């Protein structure tokens, strides 16, 4: 690992100015991805790290329309927020189903959204072929071992999975990302924040170099909304999702009046299941409806022999999640 300069930032605008002008500079927050990739894997080597954890960007506030969360709020802090528990239980559950308590005490909300993929080829510097690390070198997962990879939103160039649980309900909720750049503040919907790999897997989101997420704004759903986060993984805790579903519905006399759905473990980006929502809207809350929605959710997958199982598993995650969310108290 190359040496780096460490700067403890105290002012957001100055932090942005410092990173924006220096291609070799980067931000440091909880460190659970950044330190891992720098010190341990040697995948990235910024020469200047600007620590943003002392910036005044840690808050959770709520009004009648939205919860606003400062970017350096930790995952444990957000999970403990009473408004989140009361109004957005699937956000709380996605948080508590993530990582471990230790990592959740470190990892920030902004950092969670910007976490890098767990693709083993991306994280192995001895592997030559990785379009995400080195554009134009190919994708080792195409001929190698693909299992914890994406089946939606991928291409021949990259099938690296976005591993966030939190982003699944957030993308379903039309969360807004507030971004501070050298030129000021802009707001981007989370559904438009991430970029599918296409021909440029190394470009993962709309952030320009130096832009900093300062807060996220999570719109609240009507009070009679029920929500569920269901995660399928290879052990009961402290594991990434094979598949997951974050669903929220408003039910009226057995008919689904409103539906939001995000999928985890399947997408190169946190996946909003728009087509499945269309199937659910104004349909009766029956197993038949749920199966049709599940079919729509994973239509036209891009699979490898090692990832093909996820098509069926995603459906078998979504259907019980819908049964649970419509069947009683979430």
């Amino acid at each position: 690992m190359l040496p780096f300069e460490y700067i403890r930032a105290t002012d957001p605008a100055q932090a942005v100015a410092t990173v924006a002008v220096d291609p070799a500079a980067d931000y440091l927050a909880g460190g659970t991805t950044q330190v891992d990739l720098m010190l341990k894997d040697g995948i990235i080597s910024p020469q200047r790290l600007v620590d943003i954890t002392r910036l005044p960007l840690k808050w959770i506030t709520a009004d009648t329309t939205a919860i606003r969360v400062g970017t350096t709020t930790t995952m444990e802090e957000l999970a403990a927020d009473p408004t989140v528990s009361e109004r957005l239980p699937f956000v709380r559950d996605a948080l508590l189903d993530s990582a471990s308590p230790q990592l959740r005490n470190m990892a920030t909300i902004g950092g969670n959204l910007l976490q890098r993929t767990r693709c083993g080829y991306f994280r192995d510097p001895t592997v030559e072929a990785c379009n995400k690390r080195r554009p134009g070198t190919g994708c080792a997962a195409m001929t190698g071992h693909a299992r914890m990879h994406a089946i939606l939103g991928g291409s021949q160039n990259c099938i690296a999975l976005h591993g966030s649980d939190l982003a699944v309900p957030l993308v379903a909720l039309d969360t807004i990302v507030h971004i501070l750049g050298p030129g000021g503040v802009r707001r981007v919907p989370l559904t438009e924040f991430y970029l599918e790999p296409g021909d440029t897997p190394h470009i993962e989101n709309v952030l320009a170099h130096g832009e900093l997420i300062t807060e996220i704004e999570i719109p609240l759903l009507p009070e009679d909304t029920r929500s569920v986060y269901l995660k399928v993984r290879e052990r009961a805790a402290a594991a990434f999702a094979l598949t997951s579903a974050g669903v929220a519905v408003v039910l009226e006399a057995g008919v689904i009046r409103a539906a939001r759905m995000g999928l985890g473990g399947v997408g190169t980006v946190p996946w909003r299941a728009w087509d499945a929502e269309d199937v659910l809207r104004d349909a009766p809350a029956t197993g038949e409806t749920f199966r049709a929605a599940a079919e729509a959710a994973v239509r036209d997958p891009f699979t490898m022999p090692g990832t093909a199982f996820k098509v069926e598993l995603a459906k078998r995650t979504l259907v019980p999640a819908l049964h649970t969310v419509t069947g009683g108290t979430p």
Partner: protein
Amino acid sequence: MAEIPAAKTSLAECEMPGTFEAMESGAIPAGSTTESMRDTGHDHHGTIPEVTVTMRINGRPERLQVDTRVTLLDALRDRLALTGTKKGCDQGACGACTVLVDGKRVLSCLTLAAQCEGREVATIEGLAGHGTRHPVQEAFIRHDAFQCGYCTPGQIMSAVALLAEGRAGSDEDIRVFMSGNVCRCGAYRNIVAAIREVAGRTEA
């Protein structure tokens, strides 16, 4: 992590611009200092960026000058000889390096020492009082909650935090909220029993 050569000159001595002190004073002109820092980063002049950190460890103030790359784990073990905190995976997956920072359990292997300025760090060495073990230590012994013992300091620090978080209400909760601590000897049943006892429960 490979051994890091000791720097010959401190940050302050070589008047490197852009140190955190300069940043905090608001004196750093962002763009203009970049090149000189990058040279330093590349070690062209035999100097590796360091940072001075003041923190309290088990209640005692400590002042360290460390390479910016040094983790809290390595600072504890290699600089302060507090070897109770263990290096397991060194990648955030096993929990052997768990310590408390400002009362919260974190992984010292993924925390840079530089990030701990002004923080209160608690390690396994600070848990016992004078001549008296912490109740969690007592319970681990009574319930035979370890075999090789390598993960035990992390297990105990994590358990202390879990009890403080109020998450020992059921065996199921203990298992879920201790999931960041892996025990390759498989002492999980006894670890759960030890924590349950300290929580004041007699059954699952």
